[in-house]
Structure formats: C-alpha cells, structure tokens
C-alpha cells in the first residue's frame, strides 16, 4: 500500500515526461500519449484519494534525500487528491469534447504543440495542488501561465492574440506580486516550506514582531493571485480569452486554470498563514466585497452580451465572485461551500462551453444570440447539454449548482457577524440575474426557427448517432453534474476531512 505514496510525484513527473516526448512525435501519437497520460493520472490520483481516505490523514512526500526545511516536499491529503482526480477528469472530458473543433480550427502541424501544452498544464496543476513549498508553487504558476497562454493562442486570429497579450500582462503582474509577497515572507521567516513558514509565523505573532510587513505580504500575495484568477476588478482579459480561443482551451481555462490559483490561495490561507490569523485581518473582508461586486457585475455584463461564448465567459466572472465570497465569509462552512463550488463550476462551465459550440456549429458558425433560434432541435444532444448546464448554473435542485448555492446560503446563515444579510441578498439577486440570461438562451434555442429561414441560411441538423465522441462527452458531463448534485454528501465529507487535515 505504501507504494501509493509515490503516486503524486509519479503523476507529475509522467506529465512532464510525456510533454517532453510529445515534442518529438507526430500528431496522432501525440494524441494517444495525451489520452493515455490523462487516464493514468486519473487512476493514480484516484488511488491516492482512496489511500488518504483509508488512512484518514495526509502524508508528506520528500522529493529527494533531504527532509523538511532543506528539500522540496509534496503533501497529499484527501482534498488535494480529490482536486487532482477531478482536474484530470475535467481535462479529459474537455479535450474529448473539443477534439473535432480542434481539427477544424487549428493547423494540423501544431496539434502536437497543443498536446504538449495540455500535458504540461496538467503537470503544473497537479504540482500546484500537491506542493508543500511556496517557491515550487511560484515556478509552476509560471508554467501554468505560459501554457495557458499557449492554449489561448493556438487558434490564431487577431482576437486571441490580443487576448493573450492582455492575459499575459495581467498574469505576469500577478505573478510578480506573488513573488514579491513570497520574498517578504521568506525574509520574515527564513523558510520556503509551507509548514515551516506557518510555525515561524506563529512564533513571530506570539512575540508581536513584524506585524506590518506580514500583513502587507499576505495582502500582496492575495492581490497577485486574485489578478491571476480574474476576480472582479481584474477580469478585463477574461471575456476575450475565453470567448475566442478554441473550445477545449476555453473549457480548460475557465474550469481548471483559475481554479488552480484559487486552490493555491486556499493553501496559502490554511497552510502558510493559518486561518485564524487571516480571519483577524481585513483581507477577507476585501475579498468578500470584491466577490460580491463580481457576482453582480459579471451577471449584468452577461445579460448585455449578444455573443453566446462571451456570455458564458462573463458568467465565469460571476462564479469566481461566488468562490471568493465564500472565502470572504471566513468560516469553515464558507470555505467548504467555495471548494464545492470550484468542483460544481468546473463541471458545469466546461459543459456549457462544449455544448455551446455544438449549438453554434449548427447555426452557420454564428455566435450571435439571435441566430441560435431553434438550434436545440438541430443538434439535440448539445441542446440537452446546454439546458443541463444552465439549470445547474441557475441552481435548480438535482443539479450541482443547487448544492453549492445551498451551502453558501447555509454558511451565510451560520455566520456570526453582519455578513449574513449582504450575502443572502446578493446571492438572491445574482441567482435571478443568472436565471434571466441562461433561461433566455435556453428558451431561444428551443423556439422553432421558420423552415424557410433554415433553408435560406443553409443550417444543417446533426443526427443523434453522428458525433459519437461529442455525444459521449456531453453525457459524461451531464452524469458528472447529476452526481455532484445528488451525491453531494460524501464529497462534502471528503472536503471537510481534507480541510481538517490541512492545518
């Protein structure tokens, strides 16, 4: 059984290796390597999850000969393993769903570069999830940024390149701030490993030393990671990047990349600084306020948007606002709700992106909202997928979005301070706004289009058996959503247990 302890390290190294090997092979082989890799990663991390659940505690894996403060370390607990497995599953499904589109939109000579990017991206996500060392986190944050930029740029039109410039500038600013915060923390504590920094911080707080630099360092790191994960005032790069890149990239970016940074922020809160200390500072209040603003402003922008892909992208801004709002509540319930929302949002948003592409394909490739009329009949499976995703985002029971909203409301009610009322009000407003734009779209795709228009514009219909991989992907996503919605208890249990192991 103890061999399972090696699996996190093995899975990261495997990802990097297959990225390296992929650069020397043809497209076909690259695809097979990529698929095999992701399957392997899912299996390895699922086994790790099983192991951590069986032992009931987290374990530390020393990378190399030298233990704690001297060498690098990985740390795997239930929450980390759950996240890693989930990231693998979402990445697999997103790649499968967007495969046809990838062939249409991307030059075949560059497919293996695309697979390199996804392999390395998965490696960096796994490393961000598992690492126990702040500087390793920084290095892999950079890898994540660069490969995300590659994923945006792989479809080359003016929009994506402009979007990737904006993305790069914002996220390099973010990583600069993160590095700055990290350096100040190193200077205050003399350590880079999360657990050791934590101990030193407890020590210096006890003596009341260096309180101002500590607060500023935490603040800078939060701002950096918030910029990178597109929290409300820093979301300018997001709609273009998600709206115009190829669909697998959009799904991966929206559901995984920003979530990786958010998870890192969570680790910094819990494992580096300690949640009690964070709760005493005003940083959580700031995150709370920005989260609330993001929830409202993202939804309003989405209502005004006529382009369906950009609409979904703006909805991401709102959902990231939810997650930060949950952190901002400053209670364990709030954090649990946020983590569950990370999962729910990842499963739903990639489903939405992938089914939206099916709908636009049968509407003459137009992304305009009005052209989508009746597309739900022309591509039935995509229509079903989009409906499921919308219902989940709005928060209809049975689907995953409902559970996370319920958890948010519960956390707000249980909150001791005066944060309860604003949370509940904004949650209600945001749900209504969500319902407006998602239901508007769902109704639009199920309003029958006049036959003459269909003939004139040359719309075609997709028969159920035609796109097998796409159909299977949508079904898998739907099942995943229903699973998260109906079987939420064990997952919440795992999250709670993982958070307990965090400290």
């Amino acid at each position, binding site marked *: 059984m103890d061999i399972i302890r090696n699996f996190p390290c093995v899975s990261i190294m495997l990802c990097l290796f297959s990225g390296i090997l992929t650069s020397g092979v043809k497209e076909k082989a690259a695809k097979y390597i990529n698929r095999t890799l992701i399957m392997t990663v899912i299996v390895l991390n699922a086994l790790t999850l099983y192991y951590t659940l069986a032992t009931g505690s987290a374990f530390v894996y020393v990378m190399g000969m030298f233990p704690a403060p001297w060498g690098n370390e990985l740390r795997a607990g239930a929450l980390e393993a759950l996240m890693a497995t989930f990231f693998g599953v979402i990445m697999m499904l997103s790649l499968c769903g967007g495969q046809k589109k990838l062939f249409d939109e991307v030059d075949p000579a560059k497919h293996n570069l695309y697979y390199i990017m996804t392999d390395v991206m998965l490696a960096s996500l796994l490393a961000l999830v598992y690492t126990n060392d702040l500087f390793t986190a920084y290095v892999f944050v950079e890898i994540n940024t660069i490969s995300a930029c590659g994923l945006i740029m792989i479809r080359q039109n003016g929009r994506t390149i402009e979007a990737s*410039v904006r993305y790069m500038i914002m996220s390099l600013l973010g990583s600069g701030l993160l590095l700055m915060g990290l350096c100040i923390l190193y200077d205050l504590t003399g350590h880079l490993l999360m657990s050791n920094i934590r101990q030193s911080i407890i020590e210096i707080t006890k003596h009341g030393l260096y309180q101002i630099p500590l607060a500023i360092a935490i603040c800078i790191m939060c701002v950096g990671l918030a910029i990178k994960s597109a929290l409300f005032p820093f979301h300018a790069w997001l709609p273009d990047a998600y709206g115009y890149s190829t669909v697998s990239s959009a799904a991966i970016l929206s559901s995984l990349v920003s979530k990786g940074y958010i998870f890192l922020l969570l680790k910094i809160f819990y494992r580096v600084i300690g949640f009690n200390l964070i709760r005493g500072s005003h940083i959580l209040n700031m995150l709370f306020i920005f989260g609330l603003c993001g929830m409202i402003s993202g939804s309003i922008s989405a209502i005004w948007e006529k382009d369906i892909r950009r609409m979904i992208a703006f909805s991401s801004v709102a959902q990231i606002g939810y997650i930060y709002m949950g952190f901002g509540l400053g209670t364990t319930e709030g954090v649990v709700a946020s983590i569950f929302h990370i999962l729910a949002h990842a499963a739903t948003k990639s489903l939405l992106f992938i089914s939206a592409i099916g709908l636009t394909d049968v509407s003459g490739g137009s992304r305009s909202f009005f052209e989508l009329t009746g597309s739900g009949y022309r591509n039935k499976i995509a229509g079903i997928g989009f409906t499921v995703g919308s219902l989940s985002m709005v928060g209809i029971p049975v689907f995953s979005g409902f559970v996370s909203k319920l958890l948010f409301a519960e956390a707000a009610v249980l909150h001791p301070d005066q944060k309860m009322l604003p949370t509940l009000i904004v949650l209600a407003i945001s749900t209504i706004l969500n319902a407006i734009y998602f239901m508007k779209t769902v109704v639009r795709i199920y309003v029958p289009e006049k036959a003459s228009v269909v003939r004139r514009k040359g719309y075609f219909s997709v028969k159920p058996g035609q796109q097998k991989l796409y159909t299977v992907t949508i079904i898998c996503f739907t099942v995943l959503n229903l699973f998260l919605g109906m079987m939420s208890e064990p997952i919440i249990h795992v999250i709670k247990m993982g958070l307990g192991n965090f400290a």
Partner: protein
Amino acid sequence: MGPNLYANYVEAIAMILFGIGFFTLLLRNNLIKKIIGLNIMDTAIYLFLASKAYIPGRVAPIIVDGVQDVEKYINPIPSGLVLTGIVVSVSVSALMLSITIRLYKRYHTLNLDEISAKLKKEGL
C-alpha cells in the same frame, strides 16, 4: 516609518525600481515598453532577494580551503531562487516579444489602444 529604512537602503531602491517598472507597465501604451517594465519589475524583486543575503565581510558561498564556517559565507538560498527567477523571466519576455511580432504583423502598430480600435472595426 519603521526603524530600518536606512539600513535596508538596497531593498528600498529595489522597491522603488519595482514601482517604476509597475508605472511603465501601467502607463505606457507601447507593448515593448510594457515588456521592459515587466522585466524591470522582475529584476527589482531579484535585487531585493539578493541583497537580503548580503552581510559585509562574508564571501560568496563557494567553499574555499575546506573551511565550512557559517560565519564566513553568505546565505546561498536567495541566490538559488534568483537564478531560477532569471531564467523564468527570460523565457517569459521571449514569449511576450514573439506575441508582439505577431500583433505587429497583423495590425501594424504596437499601441494596445489602436489595436482594440482596429479589432472593433473588424467586428470579429
């Protein structure tokens, strides 16, 4: 203001440089200047880190004559971190520059405002 501003003058300069880099990044519309601003920000952080290790009278951590005394050498950790950082920043700036070339080939300008205006005109 705290007590150590004068003693930490190298760090103070590094922070000012960070601010100047940030200023260049925010205020200059030209992409190449933005990239230089990013580079200045990065080097400022590295200067900050490297100066943290320095103690007068101690030498670089290369063991001479087998003397392994802590009192004799400076702390090697910041150097290692900065080494990693420099390589990261060169690859990032190469990437940014290649994006610049592509953008210029398409829009014949380096100004981000103008590029946005052209995008609106294209109505993509």
